[in-house]
């Protein structure tokens, strides 16, 4: 059920991304996932008395890189600020974040919905520290106690706030998808929503169509997948529409999305809003970002997913679907282009090489790689050059496509290149007309019934003969050639 046309939906997304720095935002503790509780901490990230933070340069670099990719203005100076509230996962009971002078502002992200493109504004991007993890002995409501693990406390976090320009739950999901793809491409975040490296909160309000004033906004938390973002916002839009229809006032509050039950429920009233008591962090000095550094980062920006996808279509002539698959990670896209380049441009009118490479990657190579490791392709024994080598052997008829698939698996297992394997195992396609003719003759002699069947109109009998020839050659006969020679001989009998 869609939101009644009389209401316009206004959505803004706040995304928190854990940055892929080796150490935390303000101390040297490691950021690796999955260690025993409270074993990856130090006095700084545990907020002990007397400790002081020191800014991680790479986190700032990642922030700048992301800001530039979203065409934000990187502020010449920025500061950190303390944001105060009480919660046991936050050791100092304030979070070091940024407030009045964030790292960057005023950017945008282009998204594709319903075949059209929309530009969604990004209001600000800033850096802050992550909080620890809470485990409840039971559920949050029933637990008599909770347990705190500070391993995650202090990990570098980048917060981006979009302008409230998303007009539907679909757009919100599309924004998040596109956003995540950029972050992965930039190699600043691994985008793992299940593990919490990428988290999303949404703000949604409704207003009667035509009204310029925004309605009361509700914050929705606990959105840990694209699907949940969309479902939660669809539910909430419906809920608010129903309330407004009934003449009720929307309460400004925070609601939690209960994925299992399919509804949002009130968490706490934002009318008793947090008073964060922001003030500039006195333990950290301002950052005056050197223009040369920013320019250096800009120059090193990789081509972004959307642009790369479009270029694959125009430059290589592959369909949009292929382009989408091939650009899902920078490593994969690089691999594709390297393979195409290694093979060389198609001679004459054979403009099909890039498509062939694409087919092989999509159907054979991706199946052989672990799904969650975007860099695994860099470790594959089938390098771009080797893939090109294999495809060359098919193109010039040395081996058939079918044999090539076996060779591919052998390349994976042995680490050898295609030519070596073909040579060693004698897989070279038999394309010697004389030799094949002899084999065809003997097969025909041994299968008179099949020849009879064929003459009486059973086309399938020819297939059986082809099969016999293939068997006799250990699968190495060039199928097209076999077909032609057999046709020829059959027509003469």
């Amino acid at each position, binding site marked *: 059920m869609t939101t009644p046309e009389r209401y316009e939906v206004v959505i803004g997304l706040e995304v928190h991304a854990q940055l892929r*720095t*080796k*150490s935390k935002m303000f*101390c*040297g*503790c*490691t950021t690796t996932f999955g260690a*025993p*509780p*409270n*074993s*990856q*901490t*130090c*006095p700084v990230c*545990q907020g002990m008395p007397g400790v002081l933070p*020191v*800014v*991680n*340069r*790479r*986190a*700032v670099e990642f922030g700048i890189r992301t800001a530039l990719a979203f065409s934000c203005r990187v502020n010449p100076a920025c*500061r950190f600020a303390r944001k105060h509230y*009480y919660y*046991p996962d936050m050791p100092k009971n304030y979070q070091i974040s940024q407030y009045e002078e964030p790292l960057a502002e005023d950017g945008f992200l282009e998204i594709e919905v319903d075949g059209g493109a929309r530009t969604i504004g990004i209001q600000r991007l800033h850096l802050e520290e992550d909080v620890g993890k*809470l*485990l*409840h002995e039971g559920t*949050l409501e029933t*637990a*008599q*106690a*909770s*347990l*705190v*693990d*500070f391993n995650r406390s202090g990990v570098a976090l980048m917060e981006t706030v979009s302008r409230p320009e998303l007009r539907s739950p679909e757009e919100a999901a599309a924004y998040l998808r596109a956003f995540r793809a950029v972050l992965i491409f930039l190699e600043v975040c691994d985008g793992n929503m299940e593990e919490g490296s990428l988290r999303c909160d949404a703000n949604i309000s409704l207003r009667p169509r035509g009204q310029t004033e925004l309605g009361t906004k509700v914050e929705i938390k606990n959105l840990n997948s694209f699907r949940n973002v969309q479902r939660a916002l669809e539910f909430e839009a419906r809920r608010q529409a129903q309330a407004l229809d009934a003449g009720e006032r929307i309460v400004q509050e925070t609601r939690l999305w209960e994925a299992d039950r399919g509804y949002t429920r009130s*968490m*706490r009233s934002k009318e*008793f809003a947090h*008073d964060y*008591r922001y*003030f*500039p962090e*006195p333990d*950290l*000095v*301002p*950052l*005056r970002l*050197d223009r040369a550094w920013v320019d250096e980062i800009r120059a090193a920006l990789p081509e972004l997913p959307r642009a790369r996808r479009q270029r694959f279509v125009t430059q290589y002539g592959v369909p949009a679907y292929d382009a989408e698959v091939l650009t899902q990670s920078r490593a994969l896209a690089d691999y594709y282009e390297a393979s195409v380049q290694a093979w060389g441009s198609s001679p004459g009118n054979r403009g099909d090489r890039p498509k062939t490479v694409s087919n092989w990657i999509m159907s054979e190579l991706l199946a052989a790689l672990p799904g969650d490791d975007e860099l695994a392709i860099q470790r594959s024994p089938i390098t771009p050059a080797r893939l090109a080598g294999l495809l060359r052997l098919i193109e010039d008829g040395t081996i058939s496509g079918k044999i090539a698939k076996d060779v591919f698996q052998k390349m994976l297992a042995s680490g050898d290149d295609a030519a070596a394997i073909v040579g060693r195992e004698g897989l070279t396609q038999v394309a010697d007309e004389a030799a094949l003719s002899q084999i065809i003759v003997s097969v025909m002699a041994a299968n008179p019934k099949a020849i009879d069947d064929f003459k009486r109109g059973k086309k399938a009998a020819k297939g059986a003969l082809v099969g016999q020839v293939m068997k006799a050659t250990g699968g190495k006969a060039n199928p097209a050639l076999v077909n032609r020679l057999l046709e020829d001989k059959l027509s003469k009998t």
Partner: protein
Amino acid sequence: MIDRKDVEHVARLTRLALTEAELERMREQLNSILAHLDTLRLVDTTGVEPTSHAVDVVNVMREDEVEPCFPQDAMLGNAPDRSGEFFRVPRIIEE
């Protein structure tokens, strides 16, 4: 000036459980102090930037290098309520 509601609100913000008598006393003392601090209003600070650091230092950053973490026991050693490898806290009621 601060009224009773303000004092209660501030005490809640900063997690201080004060008795009725303490709240009243606090209100009086804070008002007395604030009356003196109000003299700052008389100072002309038009166009004067606030100081947030007494040093003219900028751009202090560290390289992204991992340093050894502290052992679990060292970090949990002062815990008022330790539960195995965790800090334990009483139940959290969302306001």
